[in-house]
C-alpha cells in the first residue's frame, strides 16, 4: 500500500520528462514543443467539485430527445416534433418545455460514437472510458473520483441513487470505492436509507464498544498478510455514527415546494437527493434512470407512461422536470459552477423505426448532455447526419468524453491507477479533451 502511493506522488514529474523524450524521438525540437504548447489553449485544471451523472439506462433515443430530425422521412422522424429553446437555433423535443427554458445551461454533444451496441459492454465503455476486456475490470468515473479525492469523508464519495449497474462499480479499485447504493426509492413518502439509524438499544457508546471488540477480534484472527481493515466496515461505521450523514439523506427536510419542483417521480426525487448530497460534499452521485431500452412503442414509453395518460408521465416528461429543476436549483444556490451534470446512456437508437413502433440499439451516433461545472452552456458540439445515422462533424468517442469529464473534475486523466497486483493503468488511455466544452 505504501509503495503504491509513493509511486503516484512523483508520477507527474517523470511523465513530463517522458513527454519531452517522446517528442524529440519524433524529431521535434524543444522549440517546436514550446511553440505547440503556446498555440494550443492551455487546459486549466477543472474546478468542478462534484459530479451528478444522470444515467439513462438502456440507451435513450437521440432522435426523440436531443437530436430530432423533423425533415427526415416519416420512418425516421418518429412521433415527436422539435421546439425552440432559449438559445437561438438549438431545438429540443417538444416533451422538454422546461429544459427548453434552461437550454443556455446545456452543452449538447450530438456526435458521440462507439462501435459497441450490446448493453453490458456499451455500459462499461461509457461509464469507464475503456472498452471492456476480460483481463481487466476497469473502474467507473465515480470510483476513480472517489479514489483520487482520497481522504476519509463521512459521507461516501460515490453514491448511487437509488441503485447502479455492476458496470458502474469500482472495478479493480476494489470494495473501498464501490458506490453506496441508497437502494430505496426517494419518491416514496416513507423514504429512508435502510439501516442508517442506530438499532434500538445500540446507541453511539455501545456502537463504539462493539467496534473496539471487533477490532480486537480481527487482530487476534489476523494473519500477517491481511493487515488492512475492511474499508466497507470503516465507511459503514462512519455513516452510522454521524448525525450529519443521516441528515444528508433526509429528504423530509426539503421544503414541499422544492420537492414539487423536481416532479413526483423517482428520477426527480433522486435528482433532489443528489443535490442534497453534493451540497454536503459528496464527490460523485449517479442517478439511475432505467427503462430507456425502448424497442417498442416510443409514444407510450417516452411520452405517456401508461396507456391513455392525459398528462404524459413517461420517461421524457419525467426527465424534463427533474433535470430542469436540478439545474435551476443548483444555479440558485450558487452550486452549478462547481457541480458538473452529465446526462447519458449507453447508446442511441436506430434511425429507422422498427415494426413495433420502437427503435433498436444504435451506438454509431448518439447524444450526451453536459452542464455546469465549468462547461460552456448554450452550445451544440458535433452533428449527426440527415437521419441520425452517423456523425458528420466532430466525432467524439466515449474515451474523449471520459477524459473531458475527468479534466472538468480536476482529475488528471494521465495519472496512473494501480491494480491490486501493482499494474499501472492510466485513468484515461487515448481520449482527447473536448476543448469547446470548457467555459
Amino acid at each position, binding site marked *: 500500500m505504501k509503495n503504491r502511493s509513493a509511486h503516484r506522488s512523483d508520477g507527474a514529474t517523470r511523465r513530463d520528462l517522458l513527454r519531452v523524450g517522446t517528442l524529440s524521438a519524433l524529431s521535434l525540437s524543444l522549440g517546436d514543443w514550446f511553440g505547440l504548447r503556446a498555440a494550443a489553449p492551455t487546459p486549466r485544471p477543472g474546478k468542478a467539485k462534484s459530479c451528478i451523472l444522470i444515467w439513462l439506462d438502456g440507451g435513450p433515443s437521440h432522435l426523440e430527445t436531443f437530436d430530432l430530425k423533423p425533415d427526415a422521412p416519416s420512418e425516421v422522424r418518429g412521433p415527436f416534433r422539435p421546439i425552440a429553446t432559449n438559445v437561438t437555433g438549438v431545438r429540443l423535443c417538444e416533451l422538454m418545455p422546461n429544459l427548453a427554458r434552461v437550454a443556455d445551461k446545456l452543452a449538447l454533444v450530438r456526435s458521440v460514437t462507439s*462501435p459497441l*451496441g*450490446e448493453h453490458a459492454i456499451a455500459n462499461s465503455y461509457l461509464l469507464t472510458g475503456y472498452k471492456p*476486456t*476480460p*483481463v*481487466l475490470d476497469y473502474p467507473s468515473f465515480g470510483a476513480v473520483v472517489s479514489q483520487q479525492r482520497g481522504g476519509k469523508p463521512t459521507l*461516501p464519495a460515490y453514491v448511487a441513487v437509488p441503485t447502479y449497474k*455492476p458496470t458502474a462499480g469500482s472495478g479493480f479499485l476494489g*470494495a473501498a470505492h*464501490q*458506490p*453506496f*447504493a441508497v*437502494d430505496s426509492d426517494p419518491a416514496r413518502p416513507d423514504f429512508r436509507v*435502510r*439501516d*442508517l*439509524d*442506530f*438499532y434500538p*438499544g*445500540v446507541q453511539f457508546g*455501545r*456502537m463504539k*464498544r*462493539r467496534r473496539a*471488540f*471487533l477490532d*480486537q*477480534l*480481527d487482530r*487476534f*484472527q489476523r*494473519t500477517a*498478510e491481511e493487515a488492512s481493515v*475492511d474499508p*466497507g*466496515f470503516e*465507511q*459503514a*461505521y462512519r*455513516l*452510522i455514527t454521524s448525525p450529519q450523514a443521516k441528515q444528508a439523506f433526509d429528504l423530509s427536510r426539503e421544503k414541499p415546494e422544492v420537492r414539487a419542483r423536481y416532479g413526483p417521480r423517482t428520477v426527480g426525487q433522486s435528482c433532489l437527493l443528489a443535490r442534497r448530497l453534493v451540497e454536503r460534499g459528496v464527490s460523485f452521485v449517479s442517478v439511475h434512470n432505467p427503462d430507456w431500452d425502448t424497442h417498442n412503442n416510443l409514444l407510450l414509453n417516452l411520452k405517456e407512461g401508461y396507456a391513455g395518460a392525459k398528462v404524459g408521465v413517461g420517461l421524457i416528461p419525467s426527465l424534463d422536470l427533474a433535470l430542469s429543476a436540478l439545474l435551476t436549483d443548483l444555479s440558485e444556490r450558487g452550486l452549478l459552477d462547481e457541480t458538473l451534470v452529465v446526462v447519458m446512456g449507453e447508446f442511441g437508437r436506430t434511425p429507422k423505426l422498427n415494426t413495433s413502433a420502437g427503435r*433498436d440499439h444504435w451506438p*454509431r451516433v448518439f447524444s450526451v448532455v453536459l452542464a455546469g461545472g465549468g462547461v460552456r452552456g448554450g452550445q451544440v458540439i458535433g452533428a449527426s447526419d440527415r437521419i441520425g*445515422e452517423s456523425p458528420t462533424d466532430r466525432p467524439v468517442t466515449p474515451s474523449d468524453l471520459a477524459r473531458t469529464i475527468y479534466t472538468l473534475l480536476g482529475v488528471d486523466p494521465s495519472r496512473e491507477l494501480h491494480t*491490486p*497486483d*501493482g*499494474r499501472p*493503468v492510466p485513468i484515461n488511455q487515448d481520449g482527447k479533451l473536448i476543448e469547446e466544452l470548457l467555459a
Partner: protein
Amino acid sequence: MNLSGLLVAVVGFSSGTVPHFDSEILPVLTRAGCNTGACHGAALGRGGFRLSLLGGDPAADHEAIVYELEGRRINFVHPEESLLLAKPTGELAHKGGLRIEPGSDSAQRLVQWIAAGAPRGQLRKLIHFEVQPEARVIEKVGSTVPLRAMARFDHGKIEDVTPWTVFTASDPSAIEIDDRDTATIRRRGQHVVLARFLDRIVPIRLTVPLTETPVDLSREPRSNFIDDEIYRTLEVLRVPVSPRADDVAFLRRVRLDLTGRLPSPEEVETFLDERSPSKRARLIDRLLASEEFVEYWTYRYAQWLRLRTLPAEAEATWAFHGWIRQQVQQRTGVDRLARTLLTAVGDSHREGPANFARLAADARGQAELVGSVFLGVRFQCANCHNHPLDRWTQDDYHGLAAVFARLERGRTVRVGARGAVTNPRTGEPALPRIPGSEYLQADRDQRKHFADWLTARDNPFFARAMVNRLWKAMFGRGLVEPEDDLRDTNPATHPALLNRLAADFVEHGYDIQHTLRLIARSETYGRAATTTPANATDDRFYSHAYRRSLPPEVLADALADVTDVADRYGDLPLGTRAVALVDPRTPAPALDILGRCGREIGCDAASRGGGLAAKLHQLNGELINRKVADPNGRLHRWIRAGKSNDDIIESFYRLALSRRPTDAERKHWRTQLDGATAASRVELLEDFLWALLNSSDFLMNH
C-alpha cells in the same frame, strides 16, 4: 495432424493461380478490418456497403462485392481502379481510412482476383488450422516471438496463412503485436493471443514466469490429476504453494462447500481426535452421503436451473423443486437430467421437469436459456447478427430456437402442431438446427434430437460447462470466467485440466458426486488460505485457497444456527432454512440486502452483494442485532441458566469459528467482563457475540 513439420515445403500465395474468394480474398478483408461490427460488418453495413460480420456469409459477401451497385465495386478492365481497392488503399476518399497499403501483398491479391474475373471459385473446405507456437514460455519481458499460422484445405495443399490471420492479444498492454506478426511481451504472467482465420479461432499462450526463483513441486504430495495440472502451471509460472490447511480449516471449508453448513462443535472434536490418515477422504464421503448435501445441492441446482415461481402457480414450483431434489438424492447423471428437462411434456403442476420449458417466454428465450444452462454459452448476440466473439451464427441461434418453436408453454406443456421462428436474415421460418453442426429433419420432435446431441459423449460443451460450474462451487472461481461464457475467445486458465475433468465426468456417468469428491480430495482444494509473499497476489492459479464470502442464504442459515434464532420467511413455518426456500421471491428482506440471486438471469452474472448497504445491514440492521438480543436465543438462555462468562465465550467460539479461544483471547474477554454489573454483563456479552458474528473469520469461507 501436425502441419508444422511440413512447413519447409510451404510456399506462400503463388502468383500464378487465381485467388479463391472464400478462403483467400475474405481473409484479406477480415485482416484489414473491413467486416468488423464497427465498419461494413454492421447490421446495416456502412456507407451503403454491407459485408457479413467477419466474413460469416461468403456467398452474400461475394454478391455484395461483385454484383451490387451494378458491379461498380469491381472494374474488370482496370482492376486497380475498382472501388474495392481504391477505397481501402486511400486512392478515393474512405471514411474508414487507409486499411490496405497500396502495392502490398493484400492489394496485389485483390488485383489478381479481379483481373481473373472475380470468381467465387469452387468451394474448398478448411480441414486444419494451426499456429506456431501454440504455447511458449519466455524468460524475459521484452522478448519477441514471431507468430505463424498454417492452414490445410481439402485439396491437400498446406499454406502459410500468417499474413491473412488476425492476431489479437487478449491483454494489449501485456502483448504488442506488430505489422509483421511478431509479438513482444511487456509483462510477466500467462497471456493469450487469439489467432483468427476464417471460422477458426486458436489461442496462443505466451508465458513469462512471475518470479525469478525456480519452483519445484515434484515432491509435493498429489492426490489425482487435478494436482498434476495445477502444479504444472505453477511450476511454469514459478509460484510456490501454501502449506496444507489444518484440519479445522479443511473441515469448515468442505462442510460449507458440500452442505452449506458450519460443522458442529462435536463434529470438530471427533474429527480432530480421529487419527486415520484417510480421515479427510472419509469425511468427504460422509458429507456426500448426507441429507444435508441433498438439501444444499438442491438449492445449487435450483440456482443453476433458474427455478422460480410463475405468478399464482406455486404448485408448479413445488413440483419442479421436488423433482430436482429427487434427482440430487438419486444421483441422477446430469445427462439424464438434461434430457428429461429438454423433452418433458405434461401438466406442469404435477410433472416437475415440464416447468423448465415454462421458464422462457418463447422459443428464442428458451434457446438462450438452454445455451446458458447446458452449454455454458451466451447465444444472445447471435439473435441479430453472427456472434462477433464466437462461432455462433444467426442461423445457429434461430435454428436452435426453431427446435423449441412448436412448444406450448401453458400449464400443460405440449408439442403443438404448428409454430415457427422467423430467421431475420432470410425472412423465412428458421430450420431447426443443432448450433454449429447440422440441420434437423422436420419429421420428429427435434427436442429429442437436440438432447441426443447435447448428451453424446463427445459433445464439446455440456460436460465442460458442468465441471466448470462444479469447480467454481468448490473454489469460488471457475476455470472459465464467467461460468456461462465458454467460447474460443475466452480460454480457460487451465485448458488441459478442464478437458480432463470433463472427460472424467463423462467416464463416470455425469455424476456430480464423483467430480466433487475428486476435487475435494485434491491437495489443491485442501491448501491453506494463508499466503506467502511470493503467492499473495495469485487469484487464479490455485497456489493457495481463496477467501470468499458465504452465499447470502448460507450466511443467513449460519447466523440462525449459531444464535439459535430462526428467521421467518414469508408465511413459511419458523425454522425453514434459507437454502430450502423454493421460490427466490419468498419475502426475505435480509436475503435481498445480502444480494441473493433472483434467478431471472444466470446467478453468476447477477451476483453483487458485498456493498456498503450489506455492510450497514450486518452492523446496524436486524440481521445480527435481533438475533443477538433475542430473549429466547442461545445467548440469553445461557445467561439465564447461569452459564459462566468463560463457558459462554468458549461455546460461541466453537459454534461460530469451529475452534476454542486462544489463551490471549480468553484473557482479553475476561478483562472486559470481570466486575461488570448484571445489566452491563448482558450488554457486554451481546456486544461480544455481535463482534464475533461480524468478524471476517466467521463471514468468510477460507
